C-alpha cells in the first residue's frame, strides 16, 4: 500500500521502493477543468480533482490543498485571487501597527474556508485515504507573520527581535490549531509550509523562530501523526537549523543540491523530500526529460529517508503527460530506464506500416502507451476502451502499442507522438494523457464511423 510506504519513510525505516508524493495543488483542478479559484473555494471540486490525481498519478501521498493563504485570510489579509495560481496576500493588517493579534482571532472549525476544507478532507479520506497518505498543509508561522506584518517584518528582525518572536509565537498557536483541526479530519501528515525561512539567517531562525517551530512539530507528533517542514527557494544554508527543530521530514525546492542536503538530514535521521524542478522539467520539459530527471534524482541518493516529490507546488498548467512520466519513473525505475534507452535507441531500421485509415473498413483506435501494466494513466486509458468496446465493436477495432517494444517505439515515432499515453482515432490524436468518459469515447467513434459510411 502506497500510504504505508510514506509512513515507512517518515519512520526512517529501510525501503525498497521510493514513495512518490506529487504536490498537485491547483494543478489538481486543471485535471478536471476547474480554475484555481473555483477549486479552492468548493469542497466538491477539491474532492473531484483529488480523485483524478489519485487515478492518473498513482501517488503514495498527496496534499489536499496547497494554499498558504487560508489562515491569513481568516486573520484579516485581503487576497488577490487568480485563475491559475493560488491566491496571493494583497494587504497586511499589521503593516501600520506593531501589535500582536488577540488570541480570540485564532481560527476555529467555523472560520473562513475551514469548514469547506475539513469537508473536503473527510470526503477525500473516505474515497482514497485507505491507500494514499493525505497531507494537510498549514502556513508556517514565519510566513504567516509576514502575511500579517508585510515586509516590515525584516526590519523588525533587526530592530525589535522580541516583537518578531512574539508574533511568530502567536502564529505558532494558529498553526497548532490548524494542525489539530486537520488531524481530526483524518490527515496522516501535517506539513508546515514556510517558504520564507530560506530568506533569513540560521542565527535569526534560532533567535526568533526555532522555539515556536519546535513546539509545533512536537504538538503534531503528540497527536500521533507525522510532521514535515516544507521550504521553498534556496534553503541550503538553513537545512541544519531546520533539522534541529525536529520534524519527521523536510521537503526542499529544486535549487537545493539534494545529495548534499541529504547528508545533513541523514545526520539527524530526518527524511528529505524533493526536488523535481518545477519549471524547466515539469512545466516546460518533455516526457523524456521528466523520466530522466526523476531517475537521476533517485540515483543520486540513498532511498532510506527519501520521498520523491516536486520542488514545490506544481504549476497549474503542468502537462499531465509529464507528471505521468514522473510517476512511471518513480514506480517502475527499471522499466523506465529501458524506456529512456528506447527514446535514444535508433529504430529507423524497423519498417512499420501505418494503417490506411481512409480505406479501412472499421474505425481504428490506437493506444500508444508507456506500459499498460505499470503506468496508472495508461491502464485507465486502455480500460476506457476495453470497457466500452462492446458498444462499438461493430464499427471499430483497437490496437495497443507499448513503448518498450522496438516495433512499437518505431511506430510511435513514425506517428510523430512525443507524449504518452496517447489515443489516436483513425490516425488523429484525440486524447493525450486525458482519459475520455465512456460517452465521449463512444460518441467520437460513432462520428468517425458515420463519416466512413457516407
Amino acid at each position, binding site marked *: 500500500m502506497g500510504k504505508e510506504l510514506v509512513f515507512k519513510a517518515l519512520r526512517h525505516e529501510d525501503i525498497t521502493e521510493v514513495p512518490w508524493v506529487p504536490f498537485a495543488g491547483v494543478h489538481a483542478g486543471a485535471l478536471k477543468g476547474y480554475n484555481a479559484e473555483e477549486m479552492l473555494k468548493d469542497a466538491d471540486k477539491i474532492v473531484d480533482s483529488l480523485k483524478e490525481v489519485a487515478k492518473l498519478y498513482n501517488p503514495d501521498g498527496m496534499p489536499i490543498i496547497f494554499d498558504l493563504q487560508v489562515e491569513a485570510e481568516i486573520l484579516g489579509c485581503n487576497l*488577490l485571487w*487568480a485563475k*491559475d*495560481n493560488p491566491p*496571493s*496576500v*494583497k494587504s497586511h493588517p499589521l503593516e501600520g501597527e506593531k501589535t500582536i493579534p488577540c488570541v480570540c482571532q485564532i481560527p476555529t472549525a467555523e472560520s473562513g474556508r475551514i469548514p469547506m476544507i475539513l469537508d473536503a478532507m473527510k470526503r477525500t479520506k473516505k474515497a482514497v485515504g485507505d491507500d494514499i497518505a493525505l497531507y494537510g498543509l498549514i502556513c508556517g508561522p514565519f510566513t504567516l507573520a509576514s502575511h500579517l506584518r508585510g*515586509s516590515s517584518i*525584516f*526590519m523588525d*528582525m*533587526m*530592530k525589535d527581535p522580541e516583537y518578531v518572536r512574539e508574533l511568530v509565537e502567536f502564529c505558532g498557536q494558529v498553526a497548532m490549531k490548524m494542525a489539530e483541526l486537520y488531524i481530526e479530519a483524518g490527515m496522516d501528515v501535517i506539513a508546515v509550509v514556510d517558504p520564507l525561512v530560506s*530568506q*533569513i*539567517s540560521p542565527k*535569526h531562525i534560532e533567535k526568533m523562530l526555532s522555539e515556536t517551530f519546535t513546539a509545533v512539530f512536537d504538538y503534531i507528533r503528540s497527536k500521533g501523526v507525522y510532521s514535515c517542514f516544507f521550504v*521553498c*527557494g*534556496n534553503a*541550503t*544554508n538553513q537545512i541544519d537549523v531546520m533539522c534541529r527543530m525536529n520534524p519527521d521530514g523536510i521537503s526542499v525546492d529544486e535549487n537545493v543540491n539534494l545529495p548534499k542536503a541529504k547528508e545533513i538530514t541523514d545526520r539527524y535521521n530526518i527524511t528529505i523530500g524533493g526536488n523535481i524542478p*518545477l*519549471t*524547466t522539467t515539469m*512545466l516546460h520539459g518533455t516526457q523524456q526529460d521528466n523520466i530522466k530527471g526523476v531517475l537521476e534524482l533517485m540515483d543520486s541518493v540513498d532511498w532510506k529517508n527519501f520521498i520523491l516529490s516536486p520542488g514545490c507546488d506544481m*504549476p*497549474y*498548467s503542468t502537462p499531465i503527460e509529464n507528471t505521468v512520466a514522473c510517476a512511471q519513473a518513480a514506480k517502475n525505475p527499471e522499466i523506465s530506464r529501458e524506456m529512456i534507452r528506447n527514446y535514444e535507441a535508433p529504430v529507423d531500421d524497423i519498417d512499420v506500416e501505418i494503417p490506411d485509415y481512409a480505406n479501412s473498413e472499421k474505425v481504428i483506435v490506437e493506444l500508444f502507451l508507456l506500459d499498460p501494466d505499470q503506468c496508472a494513466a495508461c491502464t485507465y486509458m486502455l480500460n476506457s476502451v476495453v470497457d466500452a468496446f462492446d458498444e462499438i465493436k461493430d464499427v471499430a477495432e483497437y490496437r495497443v502499442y507499448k513503448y518498450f517494444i522496438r516495433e512499437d517505439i518505431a511506430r510511435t515515432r513514425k506517428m510523430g507522438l512525443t507524449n504518452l499515453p496517447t489515443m489516436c482515432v483513425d490516425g488523429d490524436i484525440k486524447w493525450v494523457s486525458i482519459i475520455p468518459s465512456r460517452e465521449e469515447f463512444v460518441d467520437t467513434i460513432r462520428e468517425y464511423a458515420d463519416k466512413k459510411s457516407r
Partner: protein
Amino acid sequence: MDKELLFKEAFDSIVESDEDKAVEVLKKGEEMGVDPVELLTEGFSAGIKHLGDLFGRGEVFLPELIFATEVMKVVTEDIESKMTGTESAKKGIMIIGTVEGDVHDIGKGIVASLVKTNGIEVIDLGREVPARVFIEKAKEYNADIVGSSALLTTTMTVQKDIEELLKEAGLRDKVKTMIGGAPVTQRWADKIGADYYCEDAAESVRYALEYLSSK
C-alpha cells in the same frame, strides 16, 4: 585621520548596518573637507556592494540587506543634499516593477533600493504593472534599463510582452532589459530575448553598473 581610514569606516558602517557610525563618518568627512562623492563611492557604496556580494553568496540574508539599505538611504540623501547640480548627475535611469497579476514585491523593492543607492535613478512602478505601462514610463523618463519581476509561472509571460512591446515601440535597442523572480531563469531570458537574467539584487546592480559605464 587619513582619508583611507575614513573610507574604511564608511565601508564598515554599511556592512555593520550602523546608522550612528555612518552619520559620524559623514560629519568627519565634512570636517576633513573630503569630497562627498569620493566618500560615497570609495566608502559607503563599496560597503553596500560588498554586502550585496555576500547576499549573493548566501552569507548574509534579507533582513541584514534591507537594514543596510536603509542606512545607505540616509547616507545618500545627506550626500545628495551637499552636491552641486553637476556632481549629483545620476549614472542612468532604471524603470522597475512587479508585473501585472503579481503582488509579490519584496524582491523588487530590494533591487530598487540597492540600485538606487548605487547612484542610479530608479522609477519604481510598484506591483501589478501592465506591460504597456513599463513601455510608457520607459519613454516618459528616457530610461536606460527596464527591470521586471515575476514571482509566478503564469505572470512570467508579461516579461515576454514587455520585450515585444518595446520592439513595437521602437525602443528595444535603446534600453537594456533585466528580468528576475523565483521561477525566472537564464533559459527564460534567452527564450524571450531579455538582456540580463538577475538571480539576485547584487547581480542586478552589477549588470546595471557595467552597462551604464560602457555606454
